[in-house]
């Protein structure tokens, strides 16, 4: 095979890989991962940001590293905030003015008036300014949120997510086949839960931006899954006699090149974002990174095995696959070329 620039084949085109051989293992892994994620979310609970809980967030830039995190922490403690944390912010790449960014997050105390938190945060800002002086620190941004704001919309958001899953289910069941639909939707749920678990594990805050990231994960994974499904549908139509396992394996093998390429460009872009974007972008990019990796994996190892399972179940129930010969003939264009010969690599090719 010629590896010329501009004609690179990432995954050998005529290679038949028995992806489904591992399906029991991978489905097991997925189930474990999902359960683990649910457990993590259950135990640690989502690290809701002040967007949802209410409170204050102050970004402090320390110039020339003249103040350490411990000093800031002490200053915050002195104000008597019990639910405050000081974290570094977007620190992968040095900032333009050689400053270091810290975020002070103050959660509203239970039962405390929201305005009280806001005014206490104001006092803190003033005290920090006088304690360290303008030549050492700069208050870059401050945010005060009353907790009511997010709660109100949360349920509506969940409803929207649920309904869009149902929408996807219906579309796939009509456009493809009923045996494809559950796989696609479970794949979505699987991706979102694992991404959630990962975020909780890494103590990433769950902000309103995270919601956008999760919706993007849904969009990406459904896209990925449908492209694999499309190939399965086509292969099944052209090779009605081929056993389903083989159909799935072949389809995944044939789309492997595309899968590798698309996820590579996606992952590359997200890596750049999480390293260079800083701050609010970092949260988005890291969540998406997990989403893209899990989404790529699950379109192969969650959606396809589930389709296989559903197929077996349907066959058992006596819902035989319709004889596609007539339909296939109609679908096949006149100058139809037989599908690429599926074969294992010959010893000569391996050289």
């Amino acid at each position, binding site marked *: 095979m010629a590896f010329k620039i*501009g004609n690179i084949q*990432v995954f050998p085109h005529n290679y038949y890989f028995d992806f489904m051989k591992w399906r029991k293992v991978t489905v097991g892994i997925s189930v474990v991962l999902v359960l683990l994620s649910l457990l993590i979310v259950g135990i640690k609970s989502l690290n809701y940001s002040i967007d949802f809980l209410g409170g204050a967030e102050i970004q402090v830039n320390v110039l020339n590293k003249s103040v350490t995190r411990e000093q800031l922490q002490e200053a915050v403690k002195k104000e008597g905030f019990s639910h405050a944390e000081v974290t570094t912010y977007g620190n992968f790449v040095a900032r333009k003015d050689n400053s270091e960014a810290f975020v002070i997050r103050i959660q509203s105390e239970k039962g405390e008036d929201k305005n009280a938190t806001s005014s206490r945060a104001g006092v803190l800002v003033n005290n920090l300014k006088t304690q360290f002086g303008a030549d050492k620190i700069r208050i870059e941004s401050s945010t*005060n949120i009353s907790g009511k704001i997010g709660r109100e919309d949360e349920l*509506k958001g969940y409803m929207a997510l649920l309904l869009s899953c149902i929408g996807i289910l219906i*579309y796939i069941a009509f456009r493809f086949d009923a045996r494809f639909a559950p796989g696609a939707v479970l794949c979505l749920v699987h991706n979102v839960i694992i991404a959630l678990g990962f975020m909780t594990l890494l103590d990433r805050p769950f902000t309103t931006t995270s919601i*956008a990231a999760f*919706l993007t994960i849904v969009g990406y994974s459904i896209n990925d899954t449908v492209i694999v499904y499309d190939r399965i549908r086509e292969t099944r139509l052209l090779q009605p006699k081929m056993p389903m396992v083989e159909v799935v394996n072949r389809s995944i093998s044939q789309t492997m090149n595309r899968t590798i390429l698309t996820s590579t460009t996606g992952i590359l*872009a997200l890596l750049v974002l999480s390293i260079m974007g800083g701050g609010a972008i970092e949260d988005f990019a890291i969540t998406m990174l997990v989403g893209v990796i899990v989404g790529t994996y699950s379109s192969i190892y969650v959606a396809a095995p589930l389709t296989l399972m559903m197929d077996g179940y349907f066959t058992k129930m006596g819902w035989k696959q319709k004889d596609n010969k007539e339909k296939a003939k109609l679908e096949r264009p006149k100058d139809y070329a037989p599908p690429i010969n599926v074969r294992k690599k010959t010893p000569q090719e391996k050289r």
Partner: protein
Amino acid sequence: MQNKIPMPPIWWIKSIVILCALIFGVLYTLPTFFGNPSEWQRDSNGVPLKWHERMAENILPSSRVNLGLDLKGGLSLTLNVEVEKAVQDSIIRAITRAKETVAAENIKTGAFKVNDDLSATIEIDTPSHAQILQKRINEQTLLLLYEKVIGNTLYFKANRNYIVDFEKQLMQQAMNTIRNRIDQFGVAEPSIFQSGDTRIVVELPGMSDIQRAKQLLGNTAQLDFRLALNSVSKDQLPSLLDEARKALNISHDDTQASTIEHLSQWLRDKNKLPMNATIILQRIYGQESSAGKVVSTIPHLVEAHAKLTGDLIEDAQALQTAENYIPQYSVSLKFKPQGAKLFGELTTLAADSKNPPHEVAIILDGNVQSSPYVKAPIIGGNASITMGSSLNLPEQMKQAQDLSLVLRAGALPASVKVVEERQIGPSEGAQNIHAGIISTIVAAILVVVVMLLIYGASGFVANIAMLFNVLLILAFMALFGATLTLPGIAGIVLTMAIAVDGNVVINERIREEIRSGFNQKQAFYKGYHTSFRTLIDAHITSAVAGIVLMIYGNPAVKGFAVTLLCGIVCTLFTSYYVTEVIGQWLVERTKIKRFG
């Protein structure tokens, strides 16, 4: 098998469509890069000095992509309009007025109560009078109340549709008022929009004085005038409040108006206060050394519901006056005719010899601003509010000016509360936009290089399509006047990476067709033909999710869904349509060896 396909005539039409899209994209993206027209240098006729700016003003559309506050720095406030309370107040006012009119007809009515779910109960002497009371209430209020009589109690339920309309009207009024107030700031390009059912978001780029903004927009909202009552003596009020605090386990730090209302409610429920009375505090500010801090509070016993509110004020002016030779600031008010009549009635009641305190409390946002003695009815429709005399003079002046400004700009129909405030320094905004641009460029270069390495000529076409895609997305954002934020930049970068997916699918397909024995041209057409269905399915499933989110989601999710749908259309157009036309030209008219 040589299957010659001539360049179909439809190719030209397709090219023209693409050209139009390109022109649209460039036209709508350019204004974003021309900067703010208000900052251009202009000659005496108002014509910009630079030629490209002159051209921009004449040819280009005015809609641009707005930069979010996180990119340019400034202040963002989210205000919650307490609509429910306003609706409740309107029902209470209506029932009170109705009670007064039926009292004139010699029908006695007892106490009434309005619940949180906007239902009301009124006690009446005989069930037969229910009809008349019902009629009067319906006359007095826009919110039609449905009645039901059980024994001697009349049950009311407000009409849902009317409430929804009323709430919308309140929101509209609040938006207008806030817009008027913002005009007083002189901020360049402020943006005000509704978010959710009851929230208003105000963005003030370049503004840094958060306290002043909050005072003008959020805090100084509702002015009303109430009669002071004497059913409980003034000396007893502090101890009553303490008792309520103890019972409700509330600490002494309760300068909040809502907390006091809560305490008064408890006292009313325990019959320690009459049903028609409530306690409102007057805050006394410290002297110069601790200016602006509340040092003590004086409770006042006043009517529970205001008869006269700030929306009946015609004009307000800040004035410097002198009382006992001490200079002082005050705000003089002129009422609208209806307000003047109500104020006349109120002062007549206050000046009545049967009502010993003779005071009218002027209440601003649930705090008594002043409570002047009224010796004689004031009928002319003029009044004045004295600023707290204990404040230092500059502070007084600022307060008087702010108050007159707010009253002139229109009082808010319902009280508003600041529920969210964000402030981003200008240098942080610059840093963010720098990071955003750099990461976009780096990611774009990476994707371009990967595609060129792997697909050569068709990778090049795909890259053109990808850049075209970004251009179109920006153009659509400008068309809709959307705001570009930091997460938005991240979304665009991700779109770039994933938009090439369509071309990867097509190119892989072309390669397959070549492998199964077709020549380049046939493979090209077949590749595009067969992958069309794949792409449509992949994009429509995403679109299904997007459409559902747009219909049912909250505002933030809706915004995302619109962007998603826009992106899907742009991506399909560029990665399928545009590349096909360019590719067709390459395959048919040039001696390109390999495409795909």
